[in-house]
């Protein structure tokens, strides 16, 4: 299943259901050797993370990205409630970004599933977007072509 993605109110929210119990999903965020296996985009060939997984603890990740070279960033854990929630901030991108990840236990007849809700906050531009975009379809059309072309350079 793919994610449901919402953008608005200064934030990006990704919701995705994984077919695995919550403690297992959580472990892939908690343990560096597991996080390194999936962190980063498709072009990421190698990830090395040093993580001090506790409130106030820091983490550093160095990624090798095919066609773009090395990329590294630092962050810090603001809140951890195992296995329910992780909040951190990091300096990736053009601004410091805050991320909150919630892990919701879903029990069904098919077994354990976990809903992960990732919220990324820190886009200072929402009100500006609203002002500029109001009454125009331009932004949506751009979005359509962006997604349709599937090229997001």
């Amino acid at each position, binding site marked *: 299943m793919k994610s449901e993605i919402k953008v608005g109110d200064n934030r990006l929210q990704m919701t995705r259901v994984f077919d695995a119990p919550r403690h297992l999903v959580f472990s892939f965020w908690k343990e560096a050797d597991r996080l390194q296996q999936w962190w980063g985009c498709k072009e990421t060939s190698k990830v090395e993370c040093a993580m001090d997984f506790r409130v106030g603890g820091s983490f550093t990740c160095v990624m090798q990205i095919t066609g773009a070279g090395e990329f590294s960033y630092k962050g810090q854990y603001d809140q951890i409630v195992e296995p329910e929630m992780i909040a951190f901030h990091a300096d990736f991108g053009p601004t410091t970004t805050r991320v909150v990840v919630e892990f919701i236990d879903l029990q069904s007849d098919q077994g354990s599933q976990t809903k992960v809700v990732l919220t990324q906050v820190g886009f200072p531009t929402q009100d500006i977007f609203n002002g500029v975009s109001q009454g125009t379809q331009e932004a949506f059309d751009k979005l359509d072509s962006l*997604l349709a072309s*599937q090229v997001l350079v």
Partner: protein
Amino acid sequence: VVSIAGNIERCTALGTGSQYLTNGLTIFLTSEIPCHTLNAVVNKPEKVTAVFAALADPTRRRIVQHLSEQGESRVTALAKPFRISLPAVSRHLRVLENARLIKRRRQGREHLIRSDVAGLEEARKWIAQCAVGWESGFDTLDELLKDAQRSHNEREKAR
């Protein structure tokens, strides 16, 4: 992807999936999307950084807001509501211009300022790229979790 909350509702078919917007934008990504998230950040971070830095300042945000509401304005008209000196406004305008958030044209001795969507597009694209980046990671995580479950089940059976 993006942004633009508001009360607009809209439905469009997107491949085999769909997208709709209600007080924020909801998109279902249904196809494989190449991830250039970090490539863009690594290769040309200046553009996006310039936009975010420019918009981090409340006066500059208000100038952009003013232009989007009032349309093209004289520099002197921009200075007035903010009660700041002309040189100070000029400095703000230069920052906004570098971030491609405004455009300038001359009419005689006056400088006329209007908003430019190019800068906002950079910021928008960056948000879209974040989404694509996360989704790409989640795809891998999904596979890893399935593998972990499978080997766990096999171990259970072997017992």
